[in-house]
């Protein structure tokens, strides 16, 4: 075969998995909706439509909680216990899910890859320090680590510093909180994998050759070592993306997550009292929105693993 590369080969293998391709398209669809939601928010400005009840928007005939109805497009998916549009809230929740997923997984992958690369490449005391760090972090009960980190962002000095940052207006502290918690608690798995892989790659001839040519460590690390672990990074990114979206639900339910804007977590957590009043549609719609996104990423992640790491392929 001419004109082919490992990436192209992997893409060809990926394309053969039709379910994965459908899921990739679905994922891109979600991403477009998330961008649209961000756009609408910037265009509309406060007071945001998702904060208003349909009554306030000027639809007096829709009062309180309404099941899905065809009377007006805002009520297509029903209204919440407070009379707010489920459709609009779910739409904006997509944006929250993407911010949390992308930045949370991004932070986690950044920490895990950097530490793993350094540990595997330099060895010696750097390696020992990294191994010690992740052994210690992994030994702390997850609930404690998660809640303590969440509290730190919310009320500690971190909150003060955060408010001064240039992007604080765009990324509310509740969202940053989830990104921070996911980033700080999910990097260990990838760090272990990257470290082990780099240890293998480090002694290969072409790395030795690069060193003999007098290339600097940063160049060797980024140009020659990093590409060898990119498949691990990509797979781990998608799995952490899922984890971040699921964590948003738990953290928001516990009262340390998203608070100033609607999110799927808020809608799901809110269902605890809504269900008792027989209002099931906000849970159904938000739960389904989360399910389809998570499912598509999980399936894409599986296909990525099969396509990028043929050694692991089985069945």
């Amino acid at each position, binding site marked *: 075969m001419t004109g082919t590369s490992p990436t192209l080969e992997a893409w060809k293998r990926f394309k053969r998995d039709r379910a994965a391709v459908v899921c990739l398209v679905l994922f891109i669809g979600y991403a477009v909706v998330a961008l649209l939601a961000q756009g609408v928010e910037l265009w509309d400005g406060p007071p945001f439509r998702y904060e208003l009840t349909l009554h306030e928007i000027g639809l007096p005939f829709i009062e309180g909680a309404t099941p899905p109805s065809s009377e007006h497009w805002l009520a297509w998916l029903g209204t919440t216990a407070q009379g707010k549009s489920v459709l609009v809230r779910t739409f904006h929740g997509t944006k929250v899910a993407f911010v949390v997923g992308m930045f949370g997984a991004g932070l986690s992958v950044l920490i895990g890859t950097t530490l793993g690369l350094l540990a595997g490449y330099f060895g010696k005391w750097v390696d020992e320090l990294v191994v*010690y760090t992740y*052994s*210690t*972090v*992994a*030994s*702390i*009960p997850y*609930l*404690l*680590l998660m*809640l*303590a*980190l969440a*509290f*730190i962002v919310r*009320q*500690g*000095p*971190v909150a003060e510093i955060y408010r001064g940052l240039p992007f604080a207006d765009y990324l509310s502290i509740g969202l940053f909180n989830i990104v921070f918690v996911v980033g700080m608690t999910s990097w260990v798995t990838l760090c272990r994998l990257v470290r082990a892989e780099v240890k293998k790659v480090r002694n290969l001839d072409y790395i030795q050759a690069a060193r003999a040519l007098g290339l600097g460590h940063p160049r060797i690390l980024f140009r020659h070592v990093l590409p060898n672990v990119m498949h691990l990074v990509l797979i781990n990114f998608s799995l952490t993306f*899922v984890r971040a979206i*699921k964590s948003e*639900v*738990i953290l928001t*339910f516990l009262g340390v997550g998203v608070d100033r804007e609607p999110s799927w977590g808020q809608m*799901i*957590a809110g*269902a*605890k009292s809504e*269900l*008792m009043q027989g209002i099931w549609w906000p*849970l159904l719609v938000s*739960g389904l929105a*989360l*399910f389809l996104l*998570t*499912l598509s990423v*999980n*399936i894409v992640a*599986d296909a990525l693993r099969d396509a990028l790491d043929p050694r692991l392929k*089985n*069945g």
Partner: protein
Amino acid sequence: MTRFLLRRIAYAVPVLLGVALITLFLFHIAGGDPVAIKLGKNPDPAEVEALRQELGLYDSFARQYVEFIRQTVTFDYGRSWADDTPVREIFRRGLFPTLSVSVPGFLIGVFLAIAVSLLVAVVRGSLLDRTVTALAVAGISISSLVYILLGQWLLADQWKWFPVWGFSYGPGAVVFVALPILIWVALSVGTDVRYFRTVILEEIGQDYVRTARAKGLSETRVMVAHVLRNSLIPIVTRMTIAVPFLITGSFLLEIFFGIPGLGSTLFTAIQNSDLPVVKAFTMVGAVLYVFFNIVADLLYAVVDPRIRLE
């Protein structure tokens, strides 16, 4: 083997010291004011002062750290700041409720997952295999909160099959833990099936399986005596590593179903800045985690003679 054990145990010490340091450090920046929680909103300033002295809040960080280590070594964390109960008593009380959900949930989940994955691995590629694999990936894509909310609402609130909330010590607990156990199984079985199926398929692809078949062994014998036996190595390791999490339990299930276990206790303690309880739980969790990781490595070496510990 002895050298390996000694080295692992020696390594556990700095890890646990690190856990203690991080816990105390996190508490110092994130913890609320335990005095305010204990004395209410408008306390007498003299009383506040006396209590702060008593709780050791004015001690230096180093001194609090040394005290923490001392408490860990003697396993005596004193009394809870919230209600003066000895921490040991809190632990003893919460253990049964937690284990009555987590142990059955874990065992049922694992055995169900092993059975299912063995079955689908035999008929890999068939419609049954594809259906189960699809269900498993769908199952792990649902938020755990949705499982709990729907389970509680539908099975307990609407259909009245189970009580919605509560717990009873002794055999009466069965009624209250049945639904949480069911949800525990639903939450874990998808992940387990996916993992076990991969493990079993990896074994099926090995040369010795072909040899066993070539010898004329029956498919059942090949699967049970050869494939399952070898797959048990990673399966048992995974189960061993999960043991510490059975003791901390699922705090979400405990909160939702009013089970007075260790998970919901830790959650309340964190919210109330109840440092003695938080310290005890963290260290017990960390010691168990480290311990069972060493056990898993040992088991690996015991069942697989090719692995040599160094």
